[in-house]
């Protein structure tokens, strides 16, 4: 299905999302090595186990989002979860119970191909031990229809570092690719300094961006900040996704030095949702609501 058709279809289906296209894959010419067009859906920051006033509906929000994605007229090729599947707990038993439970709920997705990444809530207190038991490796690569995907872990080190070992692994992986290959990086925290005084950074994220810089067709999808954000470091676009638990404060120019608490709950849940990402000659995406309007 052509992109425009699919977007119209989403509109008809009551998915009144905003389409975003911005300098993505700028060097990808029509003549470049052809891979079939496809789409995938990004879920982020589900924080299973969170209880609090920022989302009194927290126990059902994920299920609603799953129903919405299951109702998409054209199912995505796969689904990614960019971290904070669970809300943190210091009890290792409870941590595993939350992981087991959220994995069961996610099993309700029609799409069977699901890729997970940890957030600090999942992995920082035990360096990813419980996470790996339930969801596998914390960083890895895979290829899909001509696109190279790289999942980076900037959370299981409690200091929010990728670490030298993972950076060396990334460098070795990138070396096997041509400078015009299509590369999608997925991670939890922003790799760039989005708002350092709110801890919206990755300690050594600049090193990863340096390694990616020679590649012309790179786009980064991440989570952590619980809101949409679009930022360029040179030719590399970074797109933060909404959460499925509660939004965070926005880092505008007049924002205070310390991060304020989440805004009051909005029962319309319009600040929450998932993202449908279309990979073609360009990358376009549509923000999907939690539930159909």
């Amino acid at each position, binding site marked *: 299905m052509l992109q425009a058709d699919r977007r119209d279809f989403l509109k008809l289906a009551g998915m009144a999302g905003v389409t975003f296209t911005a300098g993505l894959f700028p060097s990808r010419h029509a003549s470049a090595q052809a891979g079939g067009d496809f789409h995938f859906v990004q879920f982020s920051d589900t924080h299973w186990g969170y209880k609090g006033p920022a989302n009194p509906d927290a126990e059902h929000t994920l299920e609603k989002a799953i129903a919405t994605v299951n109702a998409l007229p054209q199912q995505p090729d796969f689904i990614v979860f960019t971290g904070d599947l669970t809300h*943190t707990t210091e009890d290792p038993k409870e941590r595993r119970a939350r992981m087991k439970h959220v994995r069961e709920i996610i099993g309700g997705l029609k799409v069977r191909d699901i890729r997970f990444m940890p957030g600090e809530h999942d992995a920082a*207190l035990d360096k990813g031990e419980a996470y790996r038991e339930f969801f596998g490796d914390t960083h890895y690569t895979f290829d899909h229809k001509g696109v190279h995907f790289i999942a980076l872990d900037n959370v299981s080190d409690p*200091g929010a570092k990728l670490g030298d070992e993972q950076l060396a692994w990334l460098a070795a992986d990138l070396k096997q690719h041509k400078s015009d290959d299509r590369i999608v990086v997925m991670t939890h925290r922003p790799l760039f300094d989005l708002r350092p*005084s*709110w801890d919206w950074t990755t*300690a050594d994220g600049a090193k990863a961006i340096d390694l990616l810089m020679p590649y012309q067709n790179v786009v980064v999808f991440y989570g952590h900040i619980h809101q949409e954000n679009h930022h360029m470091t040179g030719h590399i676009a970074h797109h933060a996704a909404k959460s499925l638990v509660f939004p965070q404060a926005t880092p505008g120019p007049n924002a205070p*030095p*310390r991060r304020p608490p989440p805004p009051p709950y909005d029962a319309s849940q319009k600040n929450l949702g998932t993202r449908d990402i279309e990979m073609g000659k360009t990358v376009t995406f549509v923000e999907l609501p939690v539930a159909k309007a």
Partner: protein
Amino acid sequence: MNRRSFIALLIAGSATRGVARLDAATTKEVEVMAEKFDFTPDTVKAKVGQPLTFVLTSIDRIHGFKMPDFGIRTDIVPGEERRVTIMPTKTGSFAFFCDVFCGDGHEEMGGTLIVEA
């Protein structure tokens, strides 16, 4: 002065062109204690041009102490005293916070440095 705080001072002072004169008489010290999920005190006052040394301790577990506006960070390890020195060069409110994930409440673990003229 240990090596760590000397480096922090050099970084913080590098923007001030020669202001980085440090002696015990003019440096203000403030003790800040970390525990899940607070710094005590969580508001610290300083004066422009007067070096400030944070004397950091933790009573429960490893925390972090980071002030991006001054280019400093350190771990705070129970049983050890960590000192970091900054040179305030302009008035305003600046965040300090824990940057070692320490549990449910970690994201709220921070404080404010108020620099006055």
